[in-house]
C-alpha cells in the first residue's frame, strides 16, 4: 500500500522537474493506454508506459526513475505520436532515465547500460563507431560470448565489416566534447 499523501508530497519536486524539462502537463493523461498498446518494448518493461505516467501523477517518481522501463525504452516515440492528449511519453521516460543517470541511481538494466557505455567509449576513442570492436567488447564484458555470432559469417561474406577501426583525424575535438559533457553513461575507471 502506498501512503498517498506522503508519496505525493515527497515526489512533488522531482515530478515538477520532469514536467519542466519536458514541457508536459502530466495531469492531462487520462490513462487511456494508447501508449502502452503500441509500445514494442513493453514486453520487456516492468511498468507499461501508461503506468509510468500514472505513477508520476501519484508522485511515485523514485520507482519511475529506477524502473527497468526507464532504461529499456528506446525512444521510438510511437507512444508520443499517438497519445490523444499529446503527452510526449517518450520524452518523459527518457527524462526520467537521464535524471536517474544524473543521480547515479543503481542500474537495473546492466547489459543495456553496458552497451550504451561501450558504444560511447567506442565513439569517444575513434570519433566513429567501430561495430566489430563494439560487438567484441560487449560480448566480453557482458559474458555473453556468442551473442550475435550467427551474424558474423554473413557480415563477413557480405563484406560489411572493417577489421580495423576508421578513426577521424581531429580526435582531440571529440575528446573535448566528451570531457565537457558530464552526464552520459560511462564506464567506471
Amino acid at each position, binding site marked *: 500500500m502506498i501512503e498517498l499523501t506522503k508519496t505525493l508530497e515527497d515526489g512533488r519536486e522531482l515530478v515538477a522537474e520532469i514536467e519542466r524539462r519536458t514541457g508536459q502537463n502530466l495531469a492531462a493523461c487520462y490513462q487511456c493506454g494508447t501508449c*502502452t*498498446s503500441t509500445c514494442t518494448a513493453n514486453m520487456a518493461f516492468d*511498468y*507499461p508506459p501508461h503506468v509510468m505516467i500514472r505513477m508520476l501523477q501519484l508522485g511515485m517518481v523514485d520507482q519511475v526513475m529506477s524502473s527497468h522501463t526507464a532504461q529499456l525504452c528506446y525512444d521510438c516515440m510511437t507512444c508520443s505520436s499517438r497519445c490523444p492528449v499529446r503527452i510526449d511519453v517518450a520524452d518523459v521516460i527518457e527524462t526520467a532515465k537521464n535524471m536517474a543517470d544524473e543521480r547515479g541511481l543503481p542500474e537495473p538494466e546492466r547489459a543495456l547500460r553496458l552497451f550504451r557505455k561501450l558504444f560511447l567509449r567506442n565513439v569517444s576513442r575513434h570519433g566513429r563507431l567501430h561495430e566489430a570492436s563494439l560487438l567484441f567488447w560487449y560480448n566480453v564484458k557482458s559474458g555473453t560470448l556468442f551473442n550475435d555470432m550467427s551474424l558474423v559469417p554473413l557480415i563477413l561474406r557480405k563484406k560489411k565489416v572493417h577489421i580495423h577501426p576508421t578513426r577521424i583525424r581531429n580526435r582531440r575535438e571529440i575528446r573535448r566534447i566528451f570531457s565537457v559533457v558530464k552526464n552520459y553513461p560511462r564506464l567506471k575507471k
Partner: protein
Amino acid sequence: MRIGVFICECGTNIAATVMTQKVADAALALRDVYHSESIQYTCSDPGQRTVMAAVQKHNLDRVVIAACSPRMHETTFRRTVAKAGVNPFMMEMVNIREHCSWIHDDTDEATEKAIDLMAMGVAKVREEVPLFTSKVPVTSEVLVIGGGVAGIQAALDIADAGIPVTLVEREPTLGGNMARLDKTFPTLDCSSCILTPRMVEVKHNQDIRLIVNAEVEAVRGYIGNFEADIRKKATCVDEEKCTGCYICVEKCPSKAPDEFNAGVGESKAISIPLPQAVPLVASLRKEHCRRYIKGKCGVCEKVCPADAIDYEQEDRIFTDKFGAIVVATGYELFDWKTAYPNLGGGHYPDVITAMQYERMLSASGPTEGHIRRPSDGAEPRNIVFISCVGSRDESIGRPFCCNVGCMYLAKQAILTKEHIPDSQSYIFYMDMRAVGKDYEQFYRRAQRDAGAIYLRGRVGKIYPLDGKLMVMGADTLSGQQLEVAADLVVLATGFTASDGAAELAQRLNIPYDQFDFLSESHPKLRPVETTTGGIFLAGTCQGPKDIPDTVAQASAAAAKVIGLVSRDEMETSPMVAEVNHMRCIGCWKCIEVCPYKAIEKQKLRDGRQVAIIIESLCQGCGICNVACPPSVVSLRGYTDNQLISEVVEVLR
C-alpha cells in the same frame, strides 16, 4: 427628480459583510435621494411590498436597488416598481452580493465598495428616461428546419396546438439518423416501429406542410416576423404523381452509392432511400445518372407507370412568413479515416462504423439483418468494438464526448449476441458513460447477459494478418498490453455538426461553437433558445445527445414556440439603439457594424438620407453607438451620459 435607494440584506448573505444601514445612510447624503432603507429580503413578497409602499409614500420616480446580481432579479424589480407606478426602466440594480459581500471578508472594505457601487447606481439612474416597450404583430406560422426525430417531434407538437408548420428537410425523406438505426437503447424497441408512425403522422397532419429535398436559403426579419426563402431542389420526379412503386429503381441501370445505408450495399441513380420513406417518392441524382453523364438513357421515364418523371424539372423557391423558427438539423458522423491511419485509415473493409453496423443489424437493411463481413460475406465470430473514435481526442482537435457511443455499443453487443449466439464481443472503452434513466442497468446487461468483454483502454493499432484483423490495445485495469484477433471491427465514431450547420447559423444570425454545433442561450436556464429572439434549437444540432434527450428538447422548443406565436402581438425590449436624425451625417458606419442588420437608410421629408433603427430587430448590443463618428446613435439604458456618470461618480 426623487430617487429611492433600497439596500438588501439578503438575510446574512449581504449583511454579514456589508453594513447595509451604513450604505443606506450614505445614500441619503446623495443629491436627489429622498428615501433609503435596508430591507431583509427585498425579493420576497414583504420586501417587494416595502419597496412599493416607499415609492408611493415618498412619491419616488426613480429607484436604485442594491442587492444581488441584476442577472438574477432585474426583471423582478422592474415589475415591482412598475406596480408602484414607476417606469420600469427607471429602476437600476446594483450588485453588492456576487460582486461584493460574497467575495470580500473585510467589512469596512466591503461596505466602502458597496457605497461606491450604490452611488454609481444613483448616478446612472439620474440620467435615465422613461422607456416604453412597443408591440409588434406576430405571424403564427412556424418554420422547422430538419426532419430528424427532433424536427418531427417539434413539428407535431406545434401542429397539435393548431399552429401551422412548414417542415423543411434536405434529404428526400423524413427520419434523419434515427431512421437508420436498428433497435434503440435502453428499451431495445425497434427504431422504425416508433419512428415510422410519427413520420406518417407528419404527412397526414393538416397543419404541417412538408418540403423535402429543400434547404433554407435566406432568412430576413425578426422575432414574430421572419421571412424565409426555401429552395426545393429539382429531383426530376413529380412528387404529386409518383406512387413509390419502385419500378424505376429496379430498372435503372446506373449504380450509385447508398448514403442512407452508410455505404453498406448499393443504390441506383433514381432511388427511394428506404421502404418506409415519407414521402414515399423516388428522386433522381443527376451526378450518378447515365442520362446526365453520358447523354443517353431515359429508362425511368419509359417505365414509370405514373408518368412522374420530368427531366426538365427546375429548382423552386418558396418565400413565406414565419413567427418563429426551430432549427433541428442534427448531426453527421465524424469521418475517421484520415484522422486514424493507425486504425487502418479505411483501408480494411472489415473495419466499419457503428452506423454501418446498425444498417447490418436492421432487418430492413441491405443485409436483411444478417451480420456479414464486408470483405467475404462470412459471419464474424470475434467482434471488436472501439469507443471514442474521433471523440475525446485532443490530438485531432476533438475533445468532446459523443454522448451515445458507450450506450449504443452496449446495445450492439447485446444485439450481436442475439444474432450470433456463439459470438464474442470485445469492447474497448475509456470510461463508461451510462447516465440516463435505466442506462446503467442496460450496460450491465451487455456484460452479464451478452458476455461482452469490456477492456478499459484505447486501441493503438489495427493491422491485418492472415485474414484476421489484429487489434492492439491495452487493458489499463490489469495493466496489460493485449491483442485481439478479430473478424470484424466496429468503430463508435464521434458526432460532428451537420454539413453546412455554420453557414445556416450565419444565415439565421445565431451563434455556434468551435465545432459548429449551434449554441443555446444559456446551458441551464435557456437550453432551447438561441440568442436571437424567435429562433430555437432542438436535438443534436446543439450537441451530441441520444433520442430521449433529443425528443425532450424538441418538445421544450415546441412549448417555447407555442408560447410565442400563440400571441397576436409581442413586446419588444425598449433598450435598443436610437438615432438623432437631426445630426446623422449618413455615413452608414452603423449599418456596416450592426450584426443584426437592424439599421436601414431612410429618406426624410427634407430629402436627407439618415439611418433609422428597426427596433424589433435591434438586440441592444451598442456596437453602433461606438461606431458612429458624430456620436448620434445612442443605446437606451446605456447611453454615453449614463456610463460617463457612472465613471465620474466612482472616481469622485
